[in-house]
């Protein structure tokens, strides 16, 4: 017997004596994240309904495959073949590893899915079911240390998605000076992604956290201070941005299939 049932510890047969609804939070987290995984997997493999002038789904941007529908690429730049080893590759599959990797290695999401999916632990002071535990010291979890590389890649993606939001201020014929519900959806989505990225712990470390003497680096200290303020809300930005990206994709898909009409404000 190990853990709370170890021989020297107080002999209490319950795994936890908590009386509150400790299981509710991991259950909600599991439900939301699992739903997102199912939906995003379906969308990543669907390979269509991701572009309708002037909107492109964030799941498919930047569109780098020869399979990308006309108009969805950036200046016709399509360096990746439409299929690999005779397998027709959805354009989303080429790029999703980067935002997915960023979220998978994110310090907040680690807490969320270790608790909700791996029950390690399911909640504070609730005994976990596993016999052995080595944390993030061995493969594959030691790869969590690659978070900063996904963060850098995520910043590049944010630039592309911001570009998508900007060019959505056009009409179906490419004329500037228009704004639709779709523009608003992409703008909110890309803005929340910036907040999520900039509030990241790695961003905080890179900008100033690694310094020993703030006094010698006043600009980096100021940046660190600002990011620290955002960092308090990293969890919220993680959820808001996830929901916003999912909704942006749903919106573009619905408009692309003709189920919804993209209403223009002007």
């Amino acid at each position: 017997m190990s853990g709370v049932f170890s021989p020297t510890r107080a002999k209490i047969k319950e795994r936890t004596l908590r009386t509150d609804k400790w299981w509710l939070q991991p259950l909600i987290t599991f439900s939301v994240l699992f739903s997102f995984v199912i939906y995003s997997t379906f969308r990543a493999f669907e390979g269509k309904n991701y572009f309708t002038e002037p909107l492109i789904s964030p799941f498919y941007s930047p569109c780098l495959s020869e399979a990308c529908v006309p108009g969805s690429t950036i200046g016709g730049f399509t360096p990746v073949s439409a299929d690999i080893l005779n397998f027709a590759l959805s354009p989303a599959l080429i790029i999703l590893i980067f935002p997915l990797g960023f979220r998978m290695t994110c310090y907040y999401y680690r807490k969320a899915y270790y608790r909700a999916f791996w029950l390690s632990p399911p909640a504070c002071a609730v005994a976990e079911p596993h016999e052995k535990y080595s944390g993030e010291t061995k493969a594959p979890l030691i790869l969590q240390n690659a978070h900063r590389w996904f963060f850098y890649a995520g910043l590049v993606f944010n630039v592309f998605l911001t570009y998508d939001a900007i060019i959505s201020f056009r009409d179906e014929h490419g004329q500037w000076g228009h704004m639709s519900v779709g523009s608003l959806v992409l703008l909110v989505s890309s803005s929340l992604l910036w907040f999520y990225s900039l509030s990241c712990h790695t961003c905080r470390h890179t900008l100033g956290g690694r310094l020993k003497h703030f006094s010698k680096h006043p600009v980096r200290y100021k940046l660190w201070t600002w990011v620290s303020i955002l960092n308090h809300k990293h969890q919220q930005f993680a959820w808001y941005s996830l929901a916003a990206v999912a909704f942006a994709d749903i919106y573009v898909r619905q408009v692309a299939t003709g189920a919804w009409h993209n209403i223009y404000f002007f």
Partner: protein
Amino acid sequence: MARKLNLRIWRGDSDSGALQDVQVDVNEGEVVLDVIHRVQATQMGDLAVRWNCKAGKCGSCSMEINGKPRLACMTQVASYPEGETITVTPLRTFPVIKDLVTDVSFNYKKAMEIPAYAHPADLAPGEARMEQIDVERSQEFRKCIECFLCQNVCHVIRDHEENKKSFAGPRFFIRIAELDMHPLDILKNRKKTAQEEHGLGMCNITKCCTEVCPEHIRITDNAIIPMKERVVDVKYDPARWLGSKIRRREGI
């Protein structure tokens, strides 16, 4: 005005023990430690409980109340619904001695394994000067009262006794962070030893330590994650490693 409170207290030692039900008077404004003392004075004269300041500053009265690690002196009885039975047990991560008292010597052994502050050799006592912005990060960690609630709730050792050999725990990660961020500390290998000797890599960031800290120290966000990032700098980031070889980079 006094009311009756149903209390379940774990009584026993390392060989055996059980939860015992008692009913005790409770007055408005009282904390759990008050009613434990009343039980001790009126019904269980030999009830063992460790306490000292009754002000949330000594860290002695750590226990688990309705399964949550808390300071008994800072837990208002009124924070529980009237009529609810309150269950009080000793900390479940450390060996029990008697009733609500546990043997927390594990923590003192771990404290001794952390290398002390290393002062620059060319600075005589009294000559050290530091700017406030350079020390304020470390000052947050100095609020620690060593109640060991964070150590108790950490599942790495709570649920895996065998990890106690290789894992220092959140209280000592904030100590390591405090020293590594200290503007005058000159010991260079704190990051590597944090990972290789004190088990920083075992932490999976589930933030329970932060949730239970009575001093509201942001243990995970301000100490553990920054230390994990500093470890990445020296162990897992080839670009940073190369940069440190080409020119001296501060913080490594």
